[in-house]
């Protein structure tokens, strides 16, 4: 079973990338599970045709004995969709909620299949958000970034987390590569490719900005489902293929802030 986690700055397009990746994996006939780790619980909506599925934590709050059917829902291509959810903003600990979700899924023996995609929220802000990387859950991390400095900054921070966690005896997580989700900036492809190289990795895909993405989302579908013959769908399929074939997993070396800023300036 491949366990893949997508990390990156909030709003960079991790959920869109994750959902399309899951759809592309499913198209290849793989048994896929996607787990949204964000309290916003919007990771799997496009796979579920716009349906907000009940979150694990909502269910845990309401009931004691949960069954698989209460928390796992089947979406496009048979992708098994889970949303961890979280507490109301401002109270409790969302990180602990993610941990509890994983523990429940493990207890249910639900973490199986060919690929599990963890769509992790925003930045790594606490141990709980790093949870998919810990204890053998996500073995491959893919950083989703654009050429914007703050996106690179977040990706760079996540490199620090990967490097730190990879030293743990129980952790097996490594960086699989960098996905550039384009914001249509000049020299963006080159900048992100260079960033990936500097941290000791590689850019695995350049995802161009395409109206097909917005069109699919308006229709509450993934691009793979909504526009299967579009070039953008092929980009996601290619990304899925690259990830499946990727065995080049590394411990990244984060850049220092000055170096990162200098790099971003060089490609302006």
């Amino acid at each position, binding site marked *: 079973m491949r366990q893949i986690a997508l990390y990156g700055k909030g709003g960079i397009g991790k959920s869109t990338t994750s959902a399309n990746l899951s759809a592309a994996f499913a198209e290849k006939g793989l048994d896929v599970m996607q787990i949204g780790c964000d309290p916003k619980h919007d990771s799997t909506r496009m796979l579920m045709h716009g349906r907000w599925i009940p979150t694990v*934590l909502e269910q*845990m709050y309401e009931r004691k004995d949960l069954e698989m059917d209460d928390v796992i829902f089947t979406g496009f291509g048979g992708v098994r969709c889970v949303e961890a959810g979280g507490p109301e903003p401002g109270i409790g600990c969302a990180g602990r*909620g993610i941990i509890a979700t994983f523990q429940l899924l493990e207890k249910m023996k639900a973490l199986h299949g060919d690929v599990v995609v963890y769509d992790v929220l925003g930045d790594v802000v606490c141990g709980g958000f790093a949870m998919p990387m810990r204890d053998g859950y996500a073995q491959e991390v893919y950083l989703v970034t654009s050429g914007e400095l703050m996106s690179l900054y977040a990706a760079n921070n996540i490199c620090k987390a990967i490097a730190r966690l990879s030293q743990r005896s129980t952790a097996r997580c490594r960086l699989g590569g960098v996905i550039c989700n384009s914001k249509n900036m000049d020299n963006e492809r080159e900048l992100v490719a260079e960033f990936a190289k500097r941290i000791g990795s590689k850019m695995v895909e350049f995802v161009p900005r395409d109206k097909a993405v917005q069109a699919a989302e308006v229709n509450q579908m993934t691009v793979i489902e909504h526009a299967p013959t579009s070039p953008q769908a092929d980009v996601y399929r290619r990304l899925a293929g690259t990830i499946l074939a990727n065995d080049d997993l590394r411990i990244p070396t984060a850049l220092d802030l000055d170096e990162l800023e200098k790099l971003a300036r060089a490609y302006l």
Partner: protein
Amino acid sequence: MNWKNLPGHIYESRMAGCTLTGALSVACFIPGAVAVVHAPEGCVHQTFSMLHAMMNDCDVSQIPEIIVSGIGDREVIFGGEDCLTAALDRAAALNPDLIFVVTSCVPETIGDDCGAVCSRHPSADKIIYVPTSGFLGGSAKDGENAVLTALASCVPLSQAVPGTVALIGEKNLESEADQNYAEVERLLARLGLRVTVRFCRGCDAATLMHLGTAECFILRDDRCRPAAEAIGERFKRPVIPEFPGGLSGCIDFLKNVGHACSIPEEKIASAVQDELLYQDQMLKKFSGLTKKTICLGAEPFAGTSAVAREAMERLSMQESESGFPVKLPFYLPVGAAGVEKMLYLWRRAVNNG
């Protein structure tokens, strides 16, 4: 590991328990009060085990009334304010005089607004909220100070009643606390002063509320200095920093308390004179130790060697490594009574070899 060799701050944080231990060692021993701990059950189990062991040492048989909110995984994830409210309901149902709410590190970490929960509870007027925050809030000492300060802030401001003093920070589970209290009471009587409030030792809520009537506050020792400073500042009254240590400590204590309570100089001088005579009488009982050579062991508590050497000098004793080995008291001997007890033990050691 020899913990006695650890620096003080490490000893406090690693060995003396977290703020919960300190806070509960005060809050649990106020008759008529109930302590609510907003924490996982394990925190209170651990703390109660420590308190229970100390209670056994001190022959205290009173079982403290502690209600724990019982934070679990669900509360950590979704917030624990509801379970604190439920615990407060249970506490209020006992109709106590006071409800102490003490918090552990868990609600602090997840950000429960415990102060708001307390203030909107129907029994809010009885609740004293003490945000101790477990290990995040420091050590047991900080917990003790937090409860004393929080409780004092609820005490109404009053006119000082002449001739009265209050004691601050006697440990509820301190060995020899009553003997030490008796010694302080004896010295204060020489100045015509009486103790009206022991804050907080065996006093019910109504008595504690008279704290503000004391002319001055006498601190047990430096451990509760932050609380004593806050109390002194609140009531604008002098604070005596510690119980008297040893023989000369009694004399200094009489002078300092006398001045703090505006006792006439001639009365203070008379009290000092009487005390010196009393000490001489006491030392006469140990005349058999005069000219004896003893070897003091290691100092277990700061200041005990100085107290011991002063007594030796008054008895014309000698100190040498080849002398009779004697033990120093574990805690600083309070007043002449503490010295007397130490000398009894020395005499036994010298006479029995």
